């Protein structure tokens, strides 16, 4: 079983739950940025939650099924076509061998997920099939004419008539982080309810927020320390950065807050220019 890449789009990567347990050697975790969407795609085709899926970035992906296969597209809403025919988004689709599957550009959001029954079965690296885009540990990004092996199904295919999804939140809930004392008390009050714009240079490493400067209570640098997914770092610019799956494992700017886990899935779908509201818990 395999798929052939006809057009990889601007950036399409293989992602699973990520590479856990190697941060102390400087290896980012990686893994699907919108974990709920990736899990939904896997459920729709009867895969386990640890099966690898494809993650697109804004521009979609085109694949050719070399064998009869069942796939599902979730995450950023998009047109799905099998050869010339329209196919449903958010539902399992079974196609015969030779079908060209075209996952269109994102209509809303950023990242669509394509799960194939059996999972993308590229060789794991350090226990994961995820591509990390910071250090490029793991399988390379998809390229034209690449052949992606597909694994053996592990679970039954469950009939699905509809799989509705809640509309995306535009609120990011923060808790105070280990270096919360680097921020002025007044700045904390200002952050709660503050409106920020998603920066154009946001990527799988981090979501950059543009808006009011967050006032520091102290200056200087911090000795390098470990960073978690969701850490909100405050560089000297005063513009916060929310670290996502491909974040560096250590850093020297203070982590003032940590974003809620649910909020990180939403971060994966916010577009540059989107306006978001911060809440401090």
């Amino acid at each position, binding site marked *: 079983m395999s798929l052939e890449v006809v057009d990889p789009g601007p950036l399409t990567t293989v992602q699973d739950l990520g590479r*856990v*347990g*190697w*941060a*102390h*050697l*400087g*290896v980012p975790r990686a893994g699907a940025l919108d974990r709920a969407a990736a899990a939904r795609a896997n459920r729709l085709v009867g895969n386990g939650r640890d099966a690898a899926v494809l993650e697109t970035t804004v521009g979609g992906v085109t694949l050719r099924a070399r064998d009869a296969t069942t796939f599902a597209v979730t995450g950023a809403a998009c047109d799905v076509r099998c050869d010339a025919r329209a196919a449903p988004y958010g539902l399992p689709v079974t196609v015969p061998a030779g079908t060209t599957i075209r996952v269109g550009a994102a209509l809303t959001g950023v990242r669509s997920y394509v799960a194939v029954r059996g999972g993308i079965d590229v060789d794991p*690296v*350090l226990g994961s099939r995820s591509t990390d885009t910071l*250090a490029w*540990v793991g399988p390379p990004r998809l390229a034209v004419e690449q052949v992606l092996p597909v694994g053996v199904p592990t679970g039954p295919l469950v009939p699905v008539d509809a799989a509705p999804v809640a509309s995306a939140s535009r609120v990011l809930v923060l808790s105070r982080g*280990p270096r919360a004392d680097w921020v002025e008390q007044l700045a904390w009050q200002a952050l709660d309810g503050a409106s920020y714009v998603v920066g154009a240079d946001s990527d799988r490493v981090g979501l950059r927020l543009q808006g009011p400067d967050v006032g520091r209570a102290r200056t200087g640098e911090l*000795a*390098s*320390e*470990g*960073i*978690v997914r969701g850490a909100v770092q405050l560089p000297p610019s005063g513009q916060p950065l929310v670290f996502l799956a491909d974040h*560096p*494992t*250590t*850093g020297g700017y203070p982590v003032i807050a940590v974003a809620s886990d649910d909020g990180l899935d939403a971060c994966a779908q916010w577009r540059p220019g989107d306006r978001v509201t911060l809440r401090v818990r």
Partner: protein
Amino acid sequence: MLVEVPDAVAAASLAAWARRVGLAAEEVVPGAATVLVDGADPSAVREALDAWPGDTAPVGPGEPEEEVRIEVQYDGPDLGLVAAHWGCTEAEVVDRHTSLELVSAFCGFAPGFAYLAGLPEEWAVPRLPSPRPRVPAGSVAVADRWCAVYPTASPGGWRLIGTTTATLWDVGRRPPALLAPGTRVRFVAA
């Protein structure tokens, strides 16, 4: 949970100890003066911390007495600069660098990039004003009070004093990093 400790060697020691006693955590990441414990039950972490002997002697991931020796060709473009900064000859830079008893304190910047502690305060070296766009893999470098070897080609702002053919990073090897935190390191002239 972020645990504050006195210095980098204590951080490496605590992280190696946590790994050795099998603390259940997704990640245990030493830093320059902290240990991050992620994906663990906070009460289990506190219990483990209470049991930590607090010995700052580094505990390596393998045999404690094991020391990794790295052969270096001292031919780096910044060798003269470091000699000037240390007020000695280039030959003396080699003597000093090979006399250091270093320990891998923590990794970061790139997979397998280990911050090696043990350079005396008075030998601290400033970074380049702006980083080089490409530093070759195997470059042996110093910056601030740290020594390091670039595991892969990358941009970099450290002072380059030599090169090694040692494989610092190999995803097919266990562990993939030659200089995992806690490893004792000595440079030798090739």
